[in-house]
């Protein structure tokens, strides 16, 4: 693992109207590292993911991803950045009139000039990776929530991203399915060595996928430490939050 930060967030502030969501937030993620972000609802966890991929712009502060200052990117630069990044949405966000196969093939068909046979081999390989080859002809409505998440993951992986952002990958799933998605993320990390940032409410998920866990509250970083150190933290708020069963 190299020490050069792939993601660098420095003193970022963001407010929606009178409500301040991010408040002088700073953190870094090194290449190949997996950071998990936890915290109560409204702490700014998903908001920071949206900043990292350029869906939101900070009021102040800097955000760099792979050496590019995200808020300064113009649409073409943003599209280029997004080709290097993947984003797994809370509810997978699949296009409901496209089959599993076509959903995964979509970014390649729309943003590259690859031939249909090249696209086919790429799609088949990522569907194999997420164990969904047999479901390739099904529609999103015909598969379970966990499978939809895996299709979303396959669609994210098909463009070979260097960084993946996971927004509550376990949301809406039963514990067994949630564990299977976490396992998938860990496997991908070990097999592909990808840099990732995961927002989650689930401690088992955080423990499974994270090298470090960052705890946010009121848009501020309270602690950023390996999972084992989080549980032994002496900070009262951290102890209180993590003593509640998640």
């Amino acid at each position, binding site marked *: 693992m190299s020490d050069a930060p792939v993601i660098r967030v420095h003193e970022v502030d963001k407010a929606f109207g009178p409500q301040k969501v991010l408040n002088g937030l700073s953190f870094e993620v090194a290449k190949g590292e997996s950071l998990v972000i936890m915290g109560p609802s409204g702490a700014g966890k998903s908001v920071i993911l949206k900043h990292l*991929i350029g*869906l939101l712009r900070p009021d102040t502060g800097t955000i760099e991803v792979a050496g590019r200052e995200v808020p300064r990117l113009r649409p073409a630069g943003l*599209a280029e950045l*997004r*080709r290097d*990044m993947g*984003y797994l*949405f*809370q*509810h997978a*966000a*699949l*296009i*409901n009139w496209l089959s599993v196969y076509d959903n995964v093939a*979509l*970014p390649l068909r*729309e*943003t590259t000039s690859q031939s249909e046979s090249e696209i086919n081999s790429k799609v088949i390989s990522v569907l194999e990776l997420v164990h969904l080859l047999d479901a390739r002809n099904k529609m999103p409505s015909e598969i379970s929530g966990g499978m939809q998440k895996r299709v979303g993951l396959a*669609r994210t992986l098909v*463009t070979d991203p260097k960084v993946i952002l996971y927004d509550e990958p376990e949301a809406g799933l039963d514990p067994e399915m949630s564990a299977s998605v976490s396992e998938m993320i860990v496997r991908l990390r070990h097999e592909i060595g990808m840099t990732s940032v995961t927002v989650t409410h689930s401690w088992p998920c955080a423990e499974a996928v994270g090298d470090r866990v960052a705890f946010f509250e009121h848009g501020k970083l309270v602690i950023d430490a390996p999972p084992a150190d989080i549980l032994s933290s002496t900070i009262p708020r951290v102890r209180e939050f993590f003593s509640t069963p998640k």
Partner: protein
Amino acid sequence: MNPFTQVGANWLRPIIDSAGFAVSIGLQSLATLAHLPRRARATLDQMHLVGVKTMPVVLMVGFFVGMILSLQGGQQLATFSQQESIGLIVAPLMALEMAPLITAILLAASVGSAMAAELGTMKVQEELTALNVLSVNVISYLVLPRVVALTVMSPLLALLVTWVATLGGGIIAVSQLGLSFEGYVNNSLESMRLMRETIPLPKYLFDGLLKAIIFGFVTAVVGCASGMTASNGAQGVGQTTRSAVRNAIVLIIVLDFFLGKVLM
């Protein structure tokens, strides 16, 4: 906050914002026209949805409007013993005014609302955001096929409405006003003899079709733009759909007046 600022902030600003967004969506869809060959399949699907699926209801309404015009107009003309002139009224009125308007209003209520609901649902379920994140051009992928389909199918439907309405008018002319069908048809054809100077098409028909093209474009743009600004889950989608239909119908009627003045 003084009352003027309050009116500006609460009432004018959202109207200007949404109008600006709709104009930008319309312009962006025109700018992506070169992508049309890639979107042929999606565009044909939308044309089938717009044209074929809405045709029965549009034609039925057109047929009855033609009969109503003929019946009411014929009765008024009969008081001056001029009922045989009804053929001179129904066909041009339908071609120029009623067919494009009826078609546009029905398309706004059925297809425009469906576009707003579909794109609105995609917006609240983060599918539009997902497409953005995947660097997919949302305008080219989702908006262009819908805009082209409605812009192309609207004048075709208006043409059919003109035809069935004139036919409906003829049935009433024969059955209620005691006219001959041949005389009614001859009058209808006579009324269409006035040609546009530069285009070999009857003036009323050409002007009506031009209006229908513009109304189709406006309905699609308003429907798509409204859908793309949906928020707050199912309730927000419902609200968006309602406002898409209302805004499209208001715009169509206002535009109809100004186009009528310009084309006169």
